[in-house]
Structures are given as structure tokens and as C-alpha cells.
């Protein structure tokens, strides 16, 4: 894989040479940018700052596409794009810089095609790779401002750390399901470890000291994302970037004579509910704390902990810090007799059940109801994992030993169990992780009646079901 290798597509002058600010705007620029240049506070000076600016957009997805689109439109001089993925069909509802005809193409080149159509004047730089501790500094160094449009915690911490080390302002946004967040970090950039004369702006670690455990991290692929939610956050990132660059808010305060801008770090939170017409809260602007004395990356003594050389040596270890890869919960927790493959389930349990009448077993599907709405195993009852856990907690508090009916939705009745009180329970989820935890939980609740009732995990979840039993199953 190429790591950090760049290809530059240039139009007009080489943008690494700063443009002469006394030089007038071209006829085309005057026309193209006229509507934004006459906005109060903009003017020629501000537009020239944009034309001289270099912005790196890391991630060409749901955040990066709208952000890049507005930055290109505004005439940012150099726009770098970092992404190692290719365009997939399931990206298109939100990643508006790609198109159906470009499925399978690298995201960076696809987005560049879109941006050039919008505005051919900026200098676009393609970095067709993922950002890693090895290439991060080289990628970030040439730019004035960085946009974090990525999709995982390890990368977020890495980008923030590099921005602290290289003193770059960072506009960070994130979004999943119906929530979005955006915050400007490290702006104006302040030397690492400097606290005297503060307050100074925070970095990502000042706000979020540690990542969620790996099993609680939601990705758009697994948890879902609404296009307008992530789109809004991406557009807001472009807005913050334009503001910072046009007003030179990122000028380092250490330079003598530069007026100090007050540090007012703010986290904008966007959240709404699809089911309530008048959601009680949508936007909230939260006042954040400044740089923290005990921050790992930018606090007191941080120069000894976090260095560019250390990054290349693998310190800190971002994957480990963020829970690593493939360290999902509950793997290998259950014994062999507590698990059954989907095929085996069909061949033994379902067949057997059909021969001797219904009601011989219960299938609990612990996926969210939206997933369940597309289909499940015949006769399965939907008890979302979160609901099951809170039910378990409730039972534990009250000290009751529940019956199967207690954990099922009230409208579900177990049909005649043929005199067998110990109807076995089969648990299935999406990929076979939650279901294992659910099996443990049900036993903890005493539903296995001291071993008299079988509680079994359908291994690999509905994903394995689709692979082994029903290829037409709408697995999402």
C-alpha cells in the first residue's frame, strides 16, 4: 500500500509558493467568489487568505464529502484528501461527493472528480492511503488546517496528537445514527505542554480522555447513520474552517503583536429523534474546558510522553488504547454445547420441532427492532439486547428469579409447551457477539433452572444464517 505518497493535480500556479497578496483577483475569481466576498467581515483580504490556505481533509466519507465541497467552492487554495477506501453503494446516501458511476473507485479520486467539476481552480492533492502513525506527520505537516472526517477512535486520537505536535488547528466532527458532534481543537495552536499564560485551547484528549470500550463503539456500518445528520456536521466543519482561515484565527498567539483571541472551546451537539415530531432538543452548544494540565498529549510534561519520533516507533499504541482489532466481547466464552450453528439449528431443532408440533423452543432475536423488521428466524421473538440488559438489571435489583415470559414483550405468549416446563431458549443476534452475552445474562438470571433448561447461542448470528441457511435473507 502506498503510504503517504502524494499525487498532485495542479491548476495554474504552484500553490506551495504563497500568492502575492497585493496581486488582484482574476476576473474569474472575482466572479466566482463574488457572493461570499461581499458578506460582512469577508472582503478581499479574507478571500486572499482562503486562496493562500492549505487544508487537509482526512476521510472522504459522510463528513469529508460535504466539507470538501464547500471548501472547494469557497476557493481554498490547496485541498488535500486522505482516504484509502473505495466507493461502495451503501456510502451513497450520505457521501454526496461520490456517484453511482464511480462505485469501486478510490474515494479520493472520486471526490476529486466531483470537486473539480465544482471548482477547477484549487490545487487538489490526493493521498490515497489511510492515515497511520507512520505517515501522519508527513501528511499533516504541509497544511495550515486539518479536518478530522474519519470514522474510528484510534484515528481520532492519532490525528489530534499529530496536530498538537505540529501545532495545527483541528476541526473535528463525528456522527452516528441521529447524533452529531463538532468541535474546533487546538486553535489557535499552542506549543505542546505550554500552560503558563493560559488558558489555551484543548485537544481531543482534553475533551475525551479515553475511548469507549471496543464493544461499545458504534460504526456507521453497524449502527446506521442518517445522511442529513452527518452532512450537517460536515458542512459545519467547512464553516468553521472558512471562519478560522478567513479571519486568521489560527495565527499562533506566541508571535508578538498578534492579538490573542479568547479561548472559548465549544462543542456543538446535534441530536434528534426520528419518532418525535417536536424533539425536545436538537442543537446544543456546550462550553468546554481549556487545555488540561494533566492531558497526556498537551498537558504538563507531555513533551516527554508524546513525540514525533515516538509515533513512528509505535508509541503510544493507538490500536491497543482503543481496544484493538477483533477484540469483540464474549468470544469463546461459551462452551460447545451452549452453541449451535445455523445449519445445525435448522437440521435438528427446527425439523424436530415441526415433527412434534410447535412450541418446543423459543428463539430470542436480540437485534434492534429496525434490523428485525426486515426478517428473522421463523417464530423468533425480538428482545433488543439493550432492553434485555436493563430487564436483567431490574430483575437483579428486585431479587426475583424470572420466568421466560418476564423477559418477553407482554404481547408474546409462549404456545403450549407440551408439558415441558424447560422449553429451550435459542438466542440469535446480528453477528453472534451480543447473543453470547445474552446467553450468559439469561443464565445469570436463573432462567436455565440450574441446568435443566438449555440456553443456546446460534453461532455467528443472522450473518451466518444468511451464509449457511438462507442466501436471500436481507441481512443489513
Amino acid at each position, binding site marked *: 500500500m502506498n503510504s503517504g505518497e502524494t499525487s498532485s493535480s495542479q491548476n495554474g500556479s504552484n500553490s506551495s509558493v504563497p500568492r502575492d497578496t497585493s496581486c488582484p483577483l482574476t476576473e474569474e475569481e472575482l466572479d466566482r467568489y463574488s457572493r461570499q466576498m461581499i458578506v460582512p467581515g469577508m472582503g478581499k483580504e479574507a478571500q486572499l487568505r482562503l486562496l493562500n490556505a492549505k487544508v487537509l481533509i482526512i476521510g472522504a*466519507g459522510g463528513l469529508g464529502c460535504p466539507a470538501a465541497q464547500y471548501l472547494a467552492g469557497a476557493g481554498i487554495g490547496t485541498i488535500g484528501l486522505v482516504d484509502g477506501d473505495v466507493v461502495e453503494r451503501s456510502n451513497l446516501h450520505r457521501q454526496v461527493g461520490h456517484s453511482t458511476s464511480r462505485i469501486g473507485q478510490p474515494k479520493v479520486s472520486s471526490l476529486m472528480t466531483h470537486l473539480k467539476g465544482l471548482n477547477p481552480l484549487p490545487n487538489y492533492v490526493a493521498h490515497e492511503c489511510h492515515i497511520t502513525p507512520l505517515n501522519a506527520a508527513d501528511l499533516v505537516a504541509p497544511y495550515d488546517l486539518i479536518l478530522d*472526517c474519519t*470514522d474510528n*477512535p484510534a484515528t481520532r486520537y492519532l490525528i489530534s496528537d499529530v496536530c498538537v505536535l505540529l501545532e495545527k488547528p483541528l476541526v473535528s*466532527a*463525528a456522527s*452516528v445514527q441521529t447524533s452529531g458532534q463538532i468541535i474546533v481543537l487546538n486553535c489557535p495552536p499552542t506549543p505542546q505542554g505550554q500552560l503558563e499564560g493560559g488558558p489555551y485551547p484543548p485537544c481531543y484528549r482534553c475533551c475525551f480522555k479515553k475511548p469507549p470500550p471496543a464493544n461499545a463503539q458504534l460504526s456507521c456500518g453497524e449502527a446506521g447513520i442518517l445522511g442529513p445528520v452527518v452532512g450537517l456536521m460536515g458542512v459545519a466543519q467547512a464553516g468553521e474552517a472558512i471562519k478560522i482561515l478567513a479571519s486568521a484565527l489560527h495565527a499562533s498567539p506566541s508571535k508578538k503583536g498578534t492579538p490573542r483571541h479568547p479561548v472559548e472551546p465549544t462543542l456543538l*451537539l446535534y441530536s434528534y429523534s426520528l419518532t418525535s415530531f417536536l424533539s*425536545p432538543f436538537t442543537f446544543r452548544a456546550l462550553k468546554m474546558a481549556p487545555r488540561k494540565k494533566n492531558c497526556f498529549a498537551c498537558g504538563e510534561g507531555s513533551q516527554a510522553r508524546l513525540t514525533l519520533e515516538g509515533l513512528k516507533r509505535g508509541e503510544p499504541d493507538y490500536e491497543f488504547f482503543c481496544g484493538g482489532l477483533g477484540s469483540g466481547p464474549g468470544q469463546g466464552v461459551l462452551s460447545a454445547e451452549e452453541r449451535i450453528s445455523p445449519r445445525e439449528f435448522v437440521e435438528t431443532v427446527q425439523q424436530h420441532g415441526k415433527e412434534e408440533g410447535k412450541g418446543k423452543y423459543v428463539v430470542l432475536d436480540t437485534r434492534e427492532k429496525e434490523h428485525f423488521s426486515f426478517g428473522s428466524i421463523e417464530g423468533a421473538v425480538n428482545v433488543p439486547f439493550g432492553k434485555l440488559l436493563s430487564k436483567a438489571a431490574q430483575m437483579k435489583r428486585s431479587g426475583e428469579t424470572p420466568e421466560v415470559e418476564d423477559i418477553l414483550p407482554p404481547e408474546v405468549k409462549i404456545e403450549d409447551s407440551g408439558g415441558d416446563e424447560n422449553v429451550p431458549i435459542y438466542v440469535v443476534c446480528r453477528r453472534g457477539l451480543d447473543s453470547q452475552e445474552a446467553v450468559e445474562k439469561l443464565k445469570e438470571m436463573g432462567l436455565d433452572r440450574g441446568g435443566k433448561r438449555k440456553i443456546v447461542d446460534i453461532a455467528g448470528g443472522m450473518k451466518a444464517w444468511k451464509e449457511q441457511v438462507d442466501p436471500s435473507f436481507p441481512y443489513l
Partner: protein
Amino acid sequence: MSAPKPPKGHFNLLYFASASSHTGKDMEALPAPLPLRKLFDTLEERYQGIRATVLDHSLVTINLSYVDMPSSEDKDGEDNAVVIQEGDEVAIIPPVSSG
């Protein structure tokens, strides 16, 4: 439109992102006053497991301002004395990583 006013003697607790999915709620009213350092214990009691999966890495605001959570690591943190008052709006905000 803002969140409804909490009943007398209560504060509003708002749950965002995974805090909302874990509790199954957007918000609820809890009895006030409550020392900030007791907040996570109170929630863990109600929602088993929420501390490890949600609270420990979330940021907390009171009336739209960030507050340092007193943790076991820094027992004498200066904000240990913060008490959530009647009518306050407290929010649990987990980081979101996707995009």
C-alpha cells in the same frame, strides 16, 4: 423548544448517543440535590453496566458547561464539591467516532 422543566426537587438528566441507547431514554428527572461525585453510582444502580460501557469515557455538562468528573484517580480534584442543584440540566455525552 427546550427540555421540559424538571419537577420540584429534581434535575433533568439528558442522555445522548450511546447513553440514550443504553438507558432507552432521552432524558429523565432525578432527585436533587445530588453531589456530582455520586452521579455515576446513582446511574450504575439504575442501569447495570452503564459505567463501563458509557459513563467512564463520556463527558458531563451541567447547564451546558463542561464539568470535570471527580474520579478515583484524583480524589482531591478541585471539583469534588460540585453539587447538582434542583432545576439543573445535566447531560451525559459519549464521544461519537463514526463519520
